[in-house]
C-alpha cells in the first residue's frame, strides 16, 4: 500500500517572535478533498506556503511530487504579455528541460487543461483582459497542466462568478475521482461541509481534522472562529440562532454533532489574510 501523498508532522511557522502556525500534524490520502477552514489570519495560506517550501518552517512535510498550486486571488501580473494558453503552458515549464522547446505534447496537455475549464474559446485572449472568474479558471488550468498527485488551492472560489465556481468544483471532483489529494482553503463553510471529504479547522494550530460529520460542529466552529456565529436558514438566509464562544455548551449544545445549516462567522479579523 502506497503512503498517503500528503503527510505533515509538527508544521510550525513563525514570523519573528509570533507563531503563525504551531505544530500542525495531519495526513491526506489519495482521492480526498480536504477543506481548510479558519478565520483570516488563521494560517491557511501560511500552511500552504510552508508545505510548498516557500516559507521557512519547522516540522516535516512529505508530499508526493511537486504539488500543483492555485494561489490566492489576483496575484499574477495582469499587464504581463501572455495569452490564456501561454499561462496554461507555464504549468509544463517544470517538467521541460530548458534546452527543449515546448512541443506538441506540452501544448496538447495545456489545451486539454484549458478545455476542461471551459476556456478553449479564450485561449488566444490576453490573460489580463479576461474577467476575474475566467482568470481563475486559467490559473486552475495551469495547475492541471502541471499535474501530479497533490494540489493545493488557496480560496479558489473567492470572488468568482457562479459559472466559474461550478467549473472549478467539477474539476476538483474529477481530480478526486482520479486519486489526487486536494487541499482547498475556503471561507464557505456550508460548501466545504457538503463537498469536502475531510475538514481541517485551523486557527494558528489544528483545531479539528476529520470528516464533516465528525468535525463540523458548533464546538469546533466557535473554537476556531473565537467569536459569535450567526446561524442562517439555508433556504431563505434568515437568522435562526446564535453561537457564542464559551456559551455554546450551555444553550447551543444541540448544534454539536449536527451540521449547522448556515454559518456566518463574526470572529476577530486578525490582520493579514491567512
Amino acid at each position, binding site marked *: 500500500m502506497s503512503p498517503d501523498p500528503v503527510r505533515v508532522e509538527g508544521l510550525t511557522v513563525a514570523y519573528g517572535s509570533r507563531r503563525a502556525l504551531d505544530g500542525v500534524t495531519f495526513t491526506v490520502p489519495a482521492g480526498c478533498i480536504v477543506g481548510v477552514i479558519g478565520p483570516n489570519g488563521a494560517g491557511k495560506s501560511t500552511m500552504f506556503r510552508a508545505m510548498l517550501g516557500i516559507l521557512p518552517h519547522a516540522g516535516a512535510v512529505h508530499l508526493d511530487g*511537486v504539488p500543483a498550486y492555485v*494561489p490566492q486571488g489576483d*496575484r*499574477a501580473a495582469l499587464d*504581463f*504579455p*501572455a495569452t490564456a494558453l501561454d*499561462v496554461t503552458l*507555464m504549468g509544463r515549464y*517544470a517538467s521541460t528541460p530548458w534546452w527543449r522547446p515546448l512541443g506538441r505534447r506540452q501544448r496538447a496537455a495545456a489545451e486539454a487543461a484549458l478545455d476542461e475549464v471551459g476556456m478553449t474559446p479564450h485561449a488566444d485572449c490576453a490573460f489580463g483582459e479576461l474577467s476575474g472568474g475566467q482568470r481563475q479558471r486559467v490559473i486552475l488550468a495551469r495547475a492541471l497542466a502541471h499535474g501530479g498527485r497533490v494540489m493545493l488551492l488557496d480560496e479558489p472560489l473567492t470572488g468568482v462568478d457562479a459559472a466559474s465556481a461550478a467549473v472549478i468544483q467539477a474539476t476538483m471532483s474529477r481530480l478526486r475521482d482520479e486519486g489526487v489529494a486536494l487541499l482547498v482553503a475556503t471561507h464557505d463553510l456550508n460548501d466545504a461541509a457538503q463537498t469536502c471529504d475531510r475538514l481541517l479547522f485551523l486557527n494558528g494550530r489544528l483545531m479539528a481534522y476529520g470528516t464533516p460529520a465528525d468535525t463540523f460542529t458548533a464546538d469546533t466552529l466557535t473554537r476556531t472562529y473565537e467569536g459569535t456565529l450567526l446561524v442562517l436558514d439555508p433556504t431563505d438566509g434568515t437568522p435562526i440562532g446564535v453561537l457564542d464562544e464559551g456559551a455554546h455548551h450551555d444553550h447551543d449544545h444541540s448544534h454539536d454533532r449536527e451540521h449547522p445549516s448556515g454559518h456566518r462567522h463574526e470572529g476577530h479579523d486578525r490582520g493579514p489574510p491567512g
Partner: protein
Amino acid sequence: MSWITDPWSTELVTRAGLELVLIGALGGALGVFVVVRGLPFTVEAFSHAIFPGAVIAAALGGSIVLGGLVAAVAAAVGMALAARHLGTGDETAIGVVFTGMFAAGALLLAALGPLDRDVTSFLFGDLLGVTRTDLVVTAIVAAGIGLLVTIVRRPLVASSFDPEAAAAAGVRVERLDLLLLCVLALAVVVSVRAVGNVLVLALFVTPAASARLVCRRLSTTMALAIALGVASGVGGLYVSFHARVAAGGAVVLVATGLFVLTWLVSPRRGMLAIALRARAARPARA
C-alpha cells in the same frame, strides 16, 4: 542615396552604429522584463550607482567598464539585501543605495583631483569614442546575456508573471531576481558608455513599452522590442549625423518618436483605434 550611406563611410561612425545596434537589441530584450516587472527605477539607479566605480577605475588607470561593473554589482547586492533585511520597500532601498553611491562618486572625483581620463563621458556618453575593444566587449556581453536569458527564460517568465506560483513550482525566485539585477547592471554598464547615464534608461524602457502596446505575447513583444531598439539606435545615428546633434539625445528621441507612433496606431490600445471604436459605438443620428 548618399544620405543613407554617408554615415557608414568612416570607421568611427560605423563602430558607433554597430555599438548602437548591439545595445539597442540588448535594451529591447531585457527591457521587456524591466517593463513587466516594473524595474525602470532600478535601471535608473544602476546608471548612477556605477559612478564611484568608474571614478576609482579612472584614477587607478584601470578599465572604467570593469570599475563601473563592480560598483553596479555591489549596488545590486546592496539593494537586494537592504530590501530584504531592513524591511524597507524595494524602491526605498534602491533610492537610499544609489543616491549614496552617486554621492560617493562625486566626492571621490573631487578628492582625487583632475583625472587624466574623461569620466564625464561616462555620464553623458561618448559614442564616437567607442573603440574596437569596446565593441568586442559589448558583443561578448550581449551574446552572454542572450545565452543566459535563453537558459533561464522559463523560470524568468514564470516568476515575472506570478512569483509565488513559480516558487511553488521550484523556481528559486530570490536567486533569479538577483541574477536579473546583475545582468541588468552589466547591460547598463556597457550601454552607459555610448549614450550616457542620463539617457540610458530610455533604451531599457521605451522600445519595450512600445512593443507592449502592440503585442499580447511575450515572444512577439520581445522580438518587436529588439527591432525597435535597433531601429532607435540606427535612426538616432542618422539624425545625429545629418543634423549634427548629440547621438545619445538623437537615439532617445527616435525611440520616443517610435513610442508615440505606436501609441497612435496600436490596434488595441492606440489613440486612433480608441477614437474609431468610440465613433463606431456612437448611435447613428436619425
